[in-house]
């Protein structure tokens, strides 16, 4: 690649999702995390001679659910293959995976196309004893087969992503989507969701792909974003200095922001894929496909679109609410309080002031707070109908979060209701002008900023019970502006 034009990054992702089925992909052992090593094993997942795999029906149903959520086409008959490689984490010395006919493909999530979705089994976990931390040079290597055989869905995107930030945002959307399906814990630190990225650069607008590097196993989307940005910068630098990108596998160290080249287990793998003769093809019935489609909840992407387009919620609040189902449900409870409530304002209260107040008061979660959606709805309505001021509303909210108080009672108790009698307010405004001749004169002579002091005086006189907009309007009128 030569030339001095702009370079653009091209990124595709491979995401492994551990399914939260009760048992493993091909045997009856229970899934676990953090248990004693090698307690969830049997002849099948230890690959004793003569054993056979039996597919987990639930895992197939979960894969179909993911396929439906990603708007994929499901293969009428997909088959399993053996992916052969020698390593102690693979007791059969082959992984049962899918190769040329995956269970689903040709889907989409947001603005990224899905290339394929396939089912496979996870490898066992290895621990290398010794300073190297790797099998080479270790004193001993231990294998824990508890994880071996956990059902995995691998999702491969088309190379539709262009930046680290886009990868982070889209990754979070995918994670939220799968979480909502209830088919995985999607916990990146525990490895139940793992993401690899293929990164290359090319002249902007070109339709050819440059040489890619693969970034492995990053355990948060923030790190992925930083790692990808670092790798894009590195590749651009290589090309700018007349070099060529070399195909390799890289590891990003988030503590040093450095990229390291990983030597693969065996250079140039030949996995000798072979159709798995121990398993029959997966041929989902109409009923299975209908069940998957019927079981789909409203997913983050659709929910976010509905909030923006139908309810005029701001983009950021819509995104925030739809990524966390319990927040979305809370929000919907708030607007259900009264049809007069404006959803846009309610969304801002929920994701803004309310979320902030929960954090401030002991970092409470939604499940812990004593504030009900209905009570918050009552508060939002009080503000919307101008019965209390925004400033008062924040005080009321603090009391609601602290004591589970009813907003109407607090308003009444403390006399926070705004002055709705315009005659009363007009009298207070006139008094303020009389008592503050200096700023009044400044305003009259064109210094509009001086009106602030007059507003302050009215607010003081009303103990904050006046609507700021209305006060300003009256002051301007009386001062001849």
């Amino acid at each position, binding site marked *: 690649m030569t030339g001095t034009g702009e370079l653009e990054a091209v990124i595709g992702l491979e995401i492994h999702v551990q399914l939260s089925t009760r048992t493993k992909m091909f045997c009856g052992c229970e899934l676990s995390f953090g248990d004693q090593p090698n307690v969830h094993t049997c002849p099948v997942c230890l690959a*004793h001679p*003569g054993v056979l795999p039996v597919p987990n029906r639930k895992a197939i149903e979960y894969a179909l659910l993911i396929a439906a959520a990603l708007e994929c086409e499901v293969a009428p008959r997909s088959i399993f293959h053996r992916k052969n490689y*020698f390593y102690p984490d693979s*007791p059969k*010395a082959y992984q049962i995976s899918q190769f040329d006919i995956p269970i689903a493909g040709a889907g989409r999530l947001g603005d990224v196309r899905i290339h394929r979705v396939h089912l496979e089994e996870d490898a066992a976990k290895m621990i290398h004893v010794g300073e190297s931390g790797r099998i080479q040079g270790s004193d001993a290597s231990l294998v824990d087969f508890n994880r071996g055989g956990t059902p995995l869905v691998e999702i491969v995107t088309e190379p539709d992503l262009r930046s680290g930030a886009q990868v982070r945002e889209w990754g979070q959307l995918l994670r939220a989507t799968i979480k909502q399906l209830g088919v995985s814990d999607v916990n990146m630190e525990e490895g139940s969701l793992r993401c690899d990225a293929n990164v290359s650069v090319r002249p902007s607008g070109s339709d050819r792909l440059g040489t890619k590097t693969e970034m492995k196993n990053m355990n948060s989307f923030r790190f992925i974003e930083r790692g990808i940005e670092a790798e894009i910068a590195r590749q651009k630098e290589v090309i700018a200095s007349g070099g060529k990108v070399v195909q390799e596998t890289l590891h990003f160290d988030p503590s040093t922001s450095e990229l390291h080249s990983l030597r693969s287990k065996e250079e140039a793998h030949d996995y*000798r894929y*072979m159709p798995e*003769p121990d398993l029959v093809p997966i041929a989902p019935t109409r009923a299975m496909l209908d069940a998957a489609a019927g079981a789909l909840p409203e997913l983050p992407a659709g929910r976010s679109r509905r909030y923006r387009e139908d309810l005029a919620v701001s983009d950021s609040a819509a995104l925030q609410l739809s990524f966390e189902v319990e927040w979305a449900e809370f929000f919907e409870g708030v607007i259900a309080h009264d049809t007069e409530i404006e959803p846009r304002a309610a969304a801002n209260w929920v994701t803004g002031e309310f979320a902030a107040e929960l954090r401030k008061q002991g970092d409470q979660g939604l499940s812990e707070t004593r504030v009900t959606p209905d009570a918050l709805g009552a508060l939002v309505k009080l503000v919307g109908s101008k019965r209390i001021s925004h400033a008062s509303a924040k005080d009321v909210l603090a009391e609601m979060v602290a004591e589970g108080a009813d907003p109407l009672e607090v308003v009444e108790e403390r006399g926070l209701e705004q002055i709705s009698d315009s005659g009363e307010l007009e009298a207070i405004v006139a008094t303020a002008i009389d008592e503050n001749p200096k700023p009044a004169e400044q305003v009259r002579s064109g210094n509009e900023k001086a009106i602030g002091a007059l507003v302050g005086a009215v607010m003081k006189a009303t103990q904050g019970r006046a609507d700021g907009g209305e006060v300003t309007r009256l002051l301007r009128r009386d001062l001849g502006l």
Partner: protein
Amino acid sequence: MADRDLLRATAAETASLIADGQVSATECLDAWLARVGEDDLNGYLWKADAAAAGQTVDRAAADPVAGVPVAVKDIFCTAGVPTTAGSRILDGYLPPYTATAVSRLAAAGVPMLGKTNMDEFAMGSSNENSAFGPVLNPWDHGRVPGGSSGGSAAVVAGGLAPWALGTDTGGSIRQPAALCGIVGLKPTYGAISRYGMIAFASSLDQCGPLTRDVTDAALMLSRLEGRDEMDSTSVGIEGGVDPPSATDLKGLRFGIPADLIGEGMEEGVREVFDQTAATIERLGGSIESIKLPHSDHGISAYYVLAPAEASTNLSRYDGVRYGIRESNADLDSMYEETRGEGFGPEVKRRIMLGTYALSSGYYEAYYGRAQRVRTMIVRDFTAAFEQVDFVITPTSPTVAFGLGEKTADPWSMYLNDLYTVPMSLAGIPAISIPAGTAEPAGGGPGLPVGFQIAAPAFSEQSLLEAAFALEGAIGFNQAPPGAKR
């Protein structure tokens, strides 16, 4: 009753003796265990003790076959009982579980007499590929019993077991049954669970009975067949299997695939085959010529597909979890030395063949093409079965050959499976029954010749009926000279 009479009885006759109270199941077992102790054929790799085997007898005496003990090929995993598949790499291995086929027999009250010798991982046609020495043919101790279920065939023929369990991938039940003068049945692929059968070539492996007569084969099959939730490719035989009773072959059409059984057949084998065809006609059956145009490519396709599957099936023997481990120096040495020491030369040859056939860049030319040949062979049989009810061939082109005679030439050894491999590739059932004896190529006393009958998938009942009628008309009743039966 005298032990001699008991030990000469077929399994079905033994079952009647037990049912009639002429002998107790325990007496029967003790008599057979004593006989097993006299094994002079190297047929057994492990012999049961009376206490352990006796527990099975007591457990399910209700089944009519309860108490008739069985010899089990050492390819079946048996909990707590050494299981080697004839390989040094599994020396000392004690499985934590039992194969479904063995469990089903045990559930019917059939105790296990012992584990029989075999070609390593069922790869071979002479039993000379066992890590534990060759099995001798009871008809002539200088000759091979066939393979890979050579131990199972030899102990039944030699009077060291009433019946035996074997496995067949390309002829491993039928060919040794033929060379030892007994009955061997390979059922339809999927008729019996493969769970616990150590895999050689998963898309071809199927277990089945080696017995003294067709009735016993039906009896054992009836206890073995059925769907098993541990094997998702198993389906069982609809309607089950009943004892056969046909006495003629009226209206049945038998096809001879002329293009398959031309080359390499010994003259004596051809004579027995022709006589048997004449017997079929005498029983009212008709003989027709059929075409199986692709079946002569069966051996070539088989020796790509079976090694390819074997190369991945045998990868699990890596020294990590069970069996022998030859080195702890580092990961590669552990793999290389364990597998280098553990596997014999024929197994290594097939692993290398299979690894090559699956390699990137060669897959289409070898595995892909062999799969297409397999599909054509399936279609050939489908077309043939529109014309005839059964396909008949000699089971093997030769009678039992001498120990060491073919070991230097793998291809001539492979050709011994020429007539049995096509049925394996098509997944259809086939039985070998003894049809007479013939002089071996270099002269000498007569040796058994097997007659193979193949039928459409899952038509075991009609296959057994035809074999039963033919068996009665042939009247083959010879035991090996000097054998203890």
